[in-house]
């Protein structure tokens, strides 16, 4: 048995690292949500379903076209992103001048439809997906599978790149300006609706990418997204709705916190994030990194 304070520091170190790896998924998913919320003011409940679709897309590419993991890593986010653009054109576009709540309800409905169709098509037990990077390295304090190391690196790269594009480039500047005052930006000759559409596609593509990364670790199942979406919501809220950097940092940090909870009070590991969320909202209503408007 583990004793509460008797956890050897080595084991603790291992758990911290695992927490970081899980945090990588939270960070990527919450980044997508934050980009979408920041630019479109829509709370994208479909995010979990789109993450699931990413994983399934990788599985289908392998099964029907024989394209391996590395192709899927590039193709799946594009396919899922394109699907996102379709949703935006068909549905979301009609809701921009309404209360946020309608966007939430619409995407909630969409996620029910997508998950239902996938369940019906593929059953709920899930499909296997082989690990493209088997094996691992014994770090002394733990065994680190190569694949998990790759996930952290990939996630960090994507998050940093996204942050850079939005905060440091001209395109990002247009985007940020468009969320503040779309009419003015439009007047400068920039096609704002198209930009918003592509932003949504990009956020959804991120979810798809996270799905591909998750496929070899977790079972590719229609339910994989709905289990995760509520937690990712909490991450975004804690980080501050719409804050890019906030969602990334919070994603990784909460992964670590959750990892520690799994050692000391494992039963509560799925709840600890909500406790933190409630506390943060009371102390800093706009989230840790958000600005109050």
């Amino acid at each position, binding site marked *: 048995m583990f004793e509460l304070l008797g956890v050897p520091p080595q084991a603790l170190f291992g758990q911290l690292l695992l927490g970081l790896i899980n945090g990588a998924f939270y960070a990527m998913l919450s980044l997508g949500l934050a980009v979408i919320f920041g630019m479109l003011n829509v*709370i994208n409940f479909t995010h979990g379903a789109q993450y699931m679709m990413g994983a399934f897309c990788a599985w289908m590419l392998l099964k029907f076209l024989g394209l391996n993991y590395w192709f899927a890593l590039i193709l799946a986010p594009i396919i899922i992103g394109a699907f996102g653009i379709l949703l935006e054109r068909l549905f979301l576009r009609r809701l921009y001048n309404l209360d*946020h709540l*309608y966007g939430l309800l619409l995407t909630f409905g*969409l996620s*029910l439809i997508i*998950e239902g169709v996938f*369940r*019906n098509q593929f059953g709920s037990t899930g499909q296997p997906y082989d690990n493209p990077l088997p094996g691992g390295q014994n770090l002394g304090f733990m065994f680190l599978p190569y694949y998990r190391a790759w996930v952290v690196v990939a996630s960090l790269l994507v998050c940093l790149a996204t942050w850079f594009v939005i905060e440091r480039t001209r395109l990002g500047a247009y985007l940020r300006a468009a969320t503040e005052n779309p009419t003015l930006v439009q007047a400068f000759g920039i096609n704002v609706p198209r930009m918003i559409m592509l932003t949504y596609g990009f956020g959804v593509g991120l979810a798809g990418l996270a799905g591909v990364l998750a496929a070899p670790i977790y079972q590719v199942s229609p339910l994989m997204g709905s289990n995760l979406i509520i937690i990712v919501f909490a991450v975004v809220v804690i980080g501050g709705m719409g804050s890019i950097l906030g969602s990334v940092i919070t994603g990784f940090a909460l992964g670590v916190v959750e990892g520690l909870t799994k050692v000391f009070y494992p039963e509560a590991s799925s709840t600890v994030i909500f406790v933190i969320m*409630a506390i943060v909202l009371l102390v800093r209503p706009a989230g840790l990194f958000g600005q109050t408007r």
Partner: protein
Amino acid sequence: MIRKIGIPLLLALALIAPWVGFYPVFLMKALCFALFACAFNLLIGYVGLLSFGHAMFFGGAAYATAHMVKVWGVPTEIGILGGAAVGAVMGLIVGSVAIRRQGIYFAMVTLALAQMVFFFALQAKFTGGEDGIQAVPRRPLFGLIDISSDINLYYVVLAIFLAAFLLIYRTIHSPFGQVLKAIRENEARAISLGYKVDQYKLMAFVLSAALSGLAGGTKSIVFQLASLTDVQWQMSGEVVLMTLVGGIGTIFGPVVGAFVIVTMQNYLAQIGEWVLVVQGIIFVVIVLAFRRGIVGEIAAYWARFARPARH
């Protein structure tokens, strides 16, 4: 006009329903959810607060009632009222925390607190984990009325529903309700008029939670069961759906919505997994095309139709 004919007609229908082929357990389920949706609508429709955690009151009270009746052996009526009281107390605690926030943040705080209640329900000994509290006895009401027969219980549930519905109706049309609507329309203005907005909001929240508790407690007697389903976040989503389908901010909307959704779940059980898809489609269609909900759209149509006649 509608009121004079429509309401007695509805009442008569409710009274004879179990005798003309409607299955009483189904009717009771629909009534419980109708009450729950009405309670929820009190907040979103008249104060403008979207709670995404109302399942905690519904489920918390269901557990409380089930435990009191089954383990402590209290009479059924005390058990149900006790459930409502538990809902009210929880509402007071949650409300005093949550009403300080608005919009999305209010929804998120309620969601977070509901997740904690869910965790408590999962961990606490008396809730029986995922088995729930089963085989809750249906003891005679007031020691007199035998509620082990579904028909008798149906009239009891109908009475509870009507009483609560009347209470909600009176509340909305009272000066208190007017202030709530003022807050929904323009909070800053209500404050400047000297209303203690937070107190009003809190009172509405507690009332909504207590009535949700009443619904949950009654449900646990009807099904003789309180389970984790009642406190899950999906239940909070379901009550939003019911209210949305019927019409947010209309008096009869939540009732209609609850009946529509419960009917769907009941009679579409044969198509299995497609039920969720159908629910999703309803969500999407209503948000895109009929944001006023069934009752709201009918009322709007009626108004358009009736106005020229009046001139």
